[in-house]
C-alpha cells in the first residue's frame, strides 16, 4: 500500500514540476503573445481587453492558480479567442489516437526487432548480423520528417496502396506506425542482440546445450527469456521517445493526435492547451514506467519475490 502511495506522490510531483517548468518557459519566450494572437493591425483597446482576459497583467503564480483551479474541475478552456474549446474534451479526442499509434508502432518495432536481434545473435558477425546492423544504423539515423514523406511517396503515390494522410480510414494508421516504429525497431534490435549474446555466454545456456537441446530451443527458451529484462527497461524508456517522435510524425501524416494538438496550441499561443498537453504527456510517461515495473515482475520471478 505504501508503495502505491509513494508512486502516486511521485507522479504528482512530476506532473506539477512539468507544468510549472513549461509555464515558466512560456513566460520567458521573448515577444508579446498579444501581438501573435491579435496581429499587428489590432486596436489598443482590443489589445488591452485581451491582456486582461488572459490575466497577462497578473503574476505567473496567479495564472498558474487559475489554471490549476479550472483544470481540477475539468472546466479548463482554451486561452485564445474565442475561448470556447474545452481543453479536456479535445485531449479526450486526441489521446486515444496517439495511444493507438504508440501501441501499433511498438508492435511494429517488436515484430521487426525480435527476429533481427535473435537472428543476429545466433550467428554474430554473419551476413544476417551485418544486415541487421546496417538496418539499425539507418533506422536510428533517418529523421522521421524525411522518412515519413518517403514512405508516403512509395506506398501512397507510386504503389497507391494507402492514403497519404489522415485517419478517416484505418489504413491511415499504417504509414505513421511504420515511420515511428522503424527507428525504435532499429534501436531495439541492437539491444536484443547484445542482450541475447550476453545470455548465451551464461552457465545455464551451456547446461541446456549439454542436455542436448536443439539450438533454437536453447536460444528462444533459455537465452531470450533471460535477455528480456534489459530490453524491457529500454522499452519503457523508449516509449517516452515514441511520444516525442509522435509530434513530428503526427504533423507529417496529419494524424489527429496529441502531437498535432500540441503543435496547434503552440501556434495559436493557447497556453492553457499547451500546459494541459504537457501534463498529459507527463502522466502518460509516468504511467508507462509504472507498467514497465509491473512487466518486470512478470518477466523476472526474483523481482516478485522481493516484494
Amino acid at each position: 500500500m505504501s508503495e502505491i502511495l509513494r508512486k502516486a506522490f511521485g507522479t504528482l510531483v512530476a506532473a506539477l514540476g512539468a507544468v510549472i517548468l513549461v509555464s515558466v518557459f512560456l513566460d520567458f519566450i521573448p515577444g508579446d503573445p498579444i501581438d501573435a494572437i491579435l496581429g499587428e493591425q489590432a486596436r489598443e483597446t482590443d489589445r488591452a481587453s485581451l491582456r486582461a482576459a488572459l490575466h497577462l497583467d497578473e503574476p505567473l503564480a496567479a495564472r498558474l492558480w487559475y489554471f490549476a483551479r479550472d483544470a481540477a474541475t475539468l472546466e479548463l478552456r482554451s486561452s485564445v479567442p474565442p475561448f470556447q474549446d474545452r481543453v479536456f474534451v479535445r485531449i479526450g479526442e486526441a489521446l486515444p489516437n496517439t495511444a493507438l499509434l504508440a501501441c501499433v508502432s511498438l508492435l511494429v518495432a517488436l515484430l521487426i526487432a525480435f527476429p533481427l536481434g535473435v537472428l543476429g545473435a545466433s550467428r554474430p558477425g554473419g551476413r544476417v548480423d551485418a544486415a541487421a546492423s546496417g538496418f539499425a544504423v539507418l533506422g536510428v539515423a533517418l529523421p522521421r520528417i524525411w522518412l515519413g514523406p518517403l514512405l508516403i511517396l512509395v506506398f501512397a503515390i507510386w504503389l497507391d496502396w494507402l492514403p497519404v494522410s489522415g485517419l478517416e480510414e484505418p489504413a491511415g494508421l499504417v504509414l505513421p506506425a511504420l515511420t515511428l516504429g522503424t527507428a525504435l525497431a532499429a534501436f531495439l534490435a541492437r539491444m536484443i542482440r547484445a542482450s541475447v549474446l550476453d545470455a548465451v555466454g551464461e552457465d545455464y545456456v551451456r547446461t541446456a546445450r549439454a542436455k542436448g537441446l536443439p539450438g533454437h530451443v536453447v536460444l528462444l527458451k533459455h537465452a531470450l527469456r533471460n535477455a528480456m529484462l534489459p530490453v524491457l527497461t529500454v522499452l519503457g524508456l523508449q516509449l517516452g521517445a515514441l511520444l516525442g517522435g509522435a509530434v513530428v510524425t503526427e504533423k507529417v501524416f496529419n494524424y489527429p493526435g496529441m502531437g498535432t494538438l500540441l503543435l496547434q496550441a503552440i501556434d495559436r499561443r493557447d497556453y492553457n492547451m499547451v500546459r494541459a498537453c504537457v501534463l498529459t504527456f507527463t502522466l502518460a510517461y509516468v504511467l508507462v514506467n509504472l507498467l514497465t515495473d509491473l512487466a518486470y515482475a512478470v518477466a523476472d520471478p526474483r523481482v516478485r519475490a522481493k516484494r
Partner: protein
Amino acid sequence: MTRLLLLAPLLLALCACSRSERPADRLVVAIESPPETLDRRMALGANAMRVAQLVTPGLTRVDEAGRAVPDLAASFEAIDDRTWRFVLREGLRFSDGSALTSADVAATWRSVLDPAIGSPHRGGYGYVESIETPDDRTVIFHLALPFGAFPVDASLAILPAELVGPEHLETLRRRPVGAGPYVVERWDRDEQLLLAPNPRYHGGAPALPLEIRTVRDETTRVLELRKGRVDVLLNAVSAALLPALRAEEHLAVTVGPGAGVSYLMFNLEDPLLARREVREAIALSLDREAIARHKFKGAARVADTLLRPEHWAFAPDAKKWPRDLERAKALLDAAGLVDPDGDGPQVRFRLGFKTSTDRFRRSVALVIAAQLAEAGIGVDVSPLEWGTFMGDVKRGNFQLATLKVTPVIDPDLFRLAFHSASIPSEETAWGGMNRMRYRNAAVDAALERGRSAADPEVRRAAYAEVQRIVAAELPALPLVHEDAVGIVARDVEGVRVDPQGSLQSLAGARRIR
C-alpha cells in the same frame, strides 16, 4: 516468427482497403490550419475569416483591386463623411429560410460592439456610434468620426438577429447560419469541414459541395494533391516547390497578384541611414528583379509602393528605383563615404541587418547583403528568433530589417506604416508599424485626408501623394509583391486566385469531364 506470419494478412487487409479514386462528388481544398471558429465576429485566424465568408458574407466584400463592392447590399453610399447608407438586395434569405432584413444587420453589428459577446474586434469597430433601420432594406450607420474605409469594414458577416446573443456563441461557432453560397453540413473533426451548397444564395447555389481539409505539413499537402485526394491549394505552398509542381501533368499552377508585400526598413534615427543619399544608394544597389526571379521562382514582382499596381489606390507616378550600381557608387562617393580600395574587399561602411530565423527570409537577406556588397556597403545579417526580432525592431534597435505586410487591403494601412503617430513607443504600448521612425508633416496631413474623406477620388489623390513622397524619401524600400499562388487539378475549372486569399471563387468552380 509465427506471430509475424499471423499478422501479415491483417496488414495486407489494411492495405487493400485503400482506394485511389477521388471523391468526384465534391471539391476538396486543403488549408494549413483549421479555423478556430466560423463565427466571423470572434475569428482571428486568416482561414477562419476566409471560411466564415463562404457561409456568412457581409454587406460588402473586397474585390481583387482592394475595393469594397456590394455583396448582401445592393448599393451603398456616403450621405456625409460620418454617415453611410446601405440598401440590401431584394428578397435576401438566410440558409434556414428566414428573411434577412436590416434588423439582422443592426443586431449583428450591435453584438460585435457588445462587451458580453467579447469579440476581439470590438475596439476596431468602436467608431460606429449608432445604427438606424428606417425600413426593412435600409441600414444607416452613424460614425463617431469620418472614416473613408468604412465600406471595407462593412464586410463583417451578417447573422440572424435571434442568434447573435451570447447564449448562441457555441452554435454560431460550429454551425453559423448566414446567407452565403454554402451551409455548414458537418464539422466534427478539425481536419475535415464539409460545406453544402446553399440553394437560397443570392448569387446562385454552387455546383459542388466543398470539403475543406486541414493538412498541416506542406510536403504532405503537395503529396495529397498529387494523389488526387485534394483538388485545390490556394496560397498554401512556398515558392521553392513551384518548379516541381509546374512539371506535374494533371495540375495547373496559377500565379496572380498577391496582397502581401515585403519591404526593407531603414532606421531613420541611425546617423548613417538618416542621410537620404545613403538610402538612395542602397535602393539603387539592389537588384529586386533578380530576387523576384530567383528567390521567389517568378512568383513575385518588384514593388514600387506598398500597393500592388492592380490596387485602386496605386500611384503609378511614384518614383521607381531600378538597379544602377554606378549611380549608387557615385552618390556614396559624393557623400564622402569613399570605398577605401575601389572594388576590393574593403567596405565604405558596415550596416547591421536584422531578419527573422525563417530560412527563406534569411536567404533573401543574404542576397540583399551580397548585392549591397557590390556597391561597397558591408552588411552583417543577423537572424533573430521572432519575438526578439520584433522586440528589437519595435524599439528601434536595428539599422536595416525586412518585414512583410499581409494582406494590404485598404490604403488606410499607410497610416499605420508612415504616420508619425504610429511610431512605436512606451505610450502606444509599442504598437504601430512606423518602426522606421519616419516623420513628415505633409504625409501626416495626406493620411488624415485619406482617412476622413468618403469620396474614393479624394482618397485616391491623398494616398497617391503619400506614395509619391514616401517613394522619394525612402523611409522604407518596398521589395517585392509576393504573388498569390493557386494549384488546381486540371479537371476543375472556375477557380480564381484572389490576392487576399479569399476562397470566394470556389463557389463558382465545377468539374469538367
